[in-house]
């Protein structure tokens, strides 16, 4: 089952490169997404048994994140089909500076999209730290061309920064992996198995100094990919310059994969009996990320960058939750789910806004609710959800994290947590409401878009985020027991309750 999960999108990707006709390729994309989703769903029904001598297996956390990835990818795939159909061909002028630019060939885009999925699946499924590293680096490489879909210099710059920063960061993670091997080799000098389960089993015998060094490197390395401040620097550029559906995947899926890698490291560290070190570091990084996100969300002039910084904030919440442990870890796991889906909604809606208004400047967008009768309300709802307002899912998870913090008697952390949340809320709320409410700008939403205000939106582009939003809403008033169970199990891996 697991090899199939990984192979299906990979093969589809190869096919996508070779196929000639666009329509077929789009069908293939959606088909692959559906197939992948179906297989993932079947994993819920019956957990697949480990393969390749335990190198590949799905534990609770892996399955959880795999499901998220698959779901989000399905949404993006459907959206992508519509998106690609409506992208203009050939060279066209860039709305910002009026330069001419063209898109990357669609074959490359689709292919990389599928490879991307394959590598992410590998991240979720790999139990071997070396393999994990390979997979994470793989996601970086597969996604770089996606960011550079619109071939103009801003996206190029974003891609370049993404490549260099992430590669350097993940290089450190590799070093960390090797150090872990050293720690594992330990005194008897036997062959150091890098399979997580073995490491955890031999937790006590791991050489403490090397273990700590290893965790440090892994944290910094995967933290860079995960977007923990101040290692997040690539994130806003990449998210704002890539096509919206790619941003959705980056923010909703890739960051989670990196988070999963961090979780694995923390698991091993705890097995080595030094969990507190990791907890404190994670809490520090978490708070730093939340605070820094506040700095840049407040008064942000580019709404896609705003979403990107909000992702930084939420990665901070995840790290904080795991750092707090107990109910906090549970909240973090649940929050990973909520955040991915909500960010999916927001980025896809942002894509619709961009398509209609032809600008990423907040100042250029007015009267959204009137211009886009479905996406406009979704934009507001998504903002409320992502800032943790009931009745949406994130509220529950964020509150659980707060509860965990106070349960541990960490009132200072709790206070900072609330303050940062409030700051981000003010920042995002002001921006989003300014865009959504009020009358339309003179002469329709944007002269460039030849569509009268209030006209029905294209079906797919509106329905995909709407569907995700419905799930988010559902998670706010009802958490399916199965999900709750797996969340608890996943949290249990890092000492959550």
């Amino acid at each position, binding site marked *: 089952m697991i090899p199939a999960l990984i192979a299906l999108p990979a093969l589809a990707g190869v096919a996508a490169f070779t196929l000639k006709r666009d329509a077929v390729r789009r069908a293939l994309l959606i088909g692959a997404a559906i197939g992948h989703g179906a297989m993932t769903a079947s994993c819920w029904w019956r957990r697949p048994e480990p393969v390749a001598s335990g190198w590949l297996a799905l534990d609770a956390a892996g399955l959880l994140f795999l499901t998220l990835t698959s779901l989000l990818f399905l949404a993006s795939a459907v959206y992508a089909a519509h998106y690609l159909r409506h992208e203009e061909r050939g060279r066209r002028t860039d709305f910002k500076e009026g330069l001419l630019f063209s898109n990357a060939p669609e074959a490359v885009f689709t292919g990389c999209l599928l490879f991307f999925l394959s590598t992410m699946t590998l991240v979720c499924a790999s139990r071997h730290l*070396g393999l994990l590293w*390979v997979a994470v680096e793989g996601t970086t490489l597969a996604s770089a061309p996606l960011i550079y879909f619109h071939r103009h210099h801003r996206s190029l710059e974003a891609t370049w920064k993404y490549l260099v920063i992430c590669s350097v960061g993940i*290089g450190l993670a590799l*070093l960390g992996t090797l150090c872990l091997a050293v720690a594992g080799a330990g005194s008897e000098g036997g062959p150091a198995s890098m399979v997580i389960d073995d490491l955890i089993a031999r937790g006590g015998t791991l050489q403490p*100094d090397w273990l700590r060094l290893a965790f440090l490197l892994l944290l910094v390395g995967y933290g860079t990919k995960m977007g923990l401040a101040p290692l997040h620097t690539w994130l806003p550029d990449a998210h704002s310059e890539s096509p919206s559906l790619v941003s959705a995947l980056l923010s909703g899926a890739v960051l989670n994969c990196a988070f999963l890698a961090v979780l694995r490291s923390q698991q091993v560290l705890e097995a080595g009996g030094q969990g507190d070190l990791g907890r404190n570091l994670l809490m520090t990084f978490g708070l730093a990320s939340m605070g820094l996100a506040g700095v840049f969300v407040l008064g942000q002039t580019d709404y896609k960058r705003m979403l990107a910084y909000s992702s930084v904030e939420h990665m901070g919440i995840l790290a904080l939750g795991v750092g707090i442990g107990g109910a906090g870890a549970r909240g973090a796991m649940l929050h990973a789910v909520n955040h991915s889906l909500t960010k999916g909604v927001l980025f896809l809606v942002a894509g619709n806004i961009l398509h209609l208004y032809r600008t990423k400047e907040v100042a250029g967008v007015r009267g959204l609710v009137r211009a886009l009768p479905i996406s406009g309300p979704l934009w507001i709802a998504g903002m409320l959800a992502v800032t943790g307002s009931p009745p949406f899912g994130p509220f529950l998870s964020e509150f659980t994290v707060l509860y965990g913090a106070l349960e541990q008697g960490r009132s200072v952390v709790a206070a900072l947590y609330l303050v940062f949340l409030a700051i981000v809320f003010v920042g995002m709320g002001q921006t989003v409401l300014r865009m959504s409410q009020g009358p339309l700008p003179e002469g329709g939403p944007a002269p460039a878009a030849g569509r009268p205000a209030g006209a029905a939106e294209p079906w797919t582009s509106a329905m995909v985020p709407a569907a995700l939003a419905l799930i988010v809403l559902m998670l706010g008033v009802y958490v399916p027991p199965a999900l709750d169970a797996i969340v608890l199990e996943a949290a249990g891996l890092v000492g959550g309750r």
Partner: protein
Amino acid sequence: MTGWLDTLLVLIVLTNLKLLGTSRLGGCIRVVAAQGVLLGGLPLLAGGGLLAPRALLLAAAGVGLKGIVFPWLLLRALREAKVQREVQPYLGFTASMLIGAGVLGIGLWAGSRLPLPTAVRSSLLVPVALATMLTGLLVVVSRSKAITQVLGYLVFENGIYAFGVGIAPDAPVLVELGILLDVFVAVFVMGIMIFHINREFDDIDTERLSELRDWRPE
């Protein structure tokens, strides 16, 4: 055999310093190529046996990639992008070399604090690996051209590779190859990017690549 190993390591350190001191891009690439070849030898000396199939395989792959393919790619990119061949450092060459020496010091200090596993042949290995990595980072940070950043990344990668081969000699070969493959793809993609950067800016100076930001100095 430890003597050989140490010599190799010292040579690697020298390549680091040379890289920091070189002013012409072409030169830099050749230095990195040399370092790649040296690294290729590392598995043979550090690993289990001189002629263990695993060691041979790794050596071949390492020399092939780090010593031949990468330099070739980069030189080609350099030729495509008809840039002037100066490195244009933010940091003077002498200063860089001094820092390079200091970096070696850091490596020695860190290495001395960590208990070495028995498998390690030379106490010099960890310091050199660390120093190489930091040198690579130093290049990334202190040089302005995109291509030098790739070089820096390569050297950084070399350091890790050296560490891996030397410290964890019996890590499964599949992983090592996977790692090499990743690095290869990385460099390949970066090469493509450099090509595009050059096309967009008719120069690969990353000074131009600071359009995206949230802060404008008054």
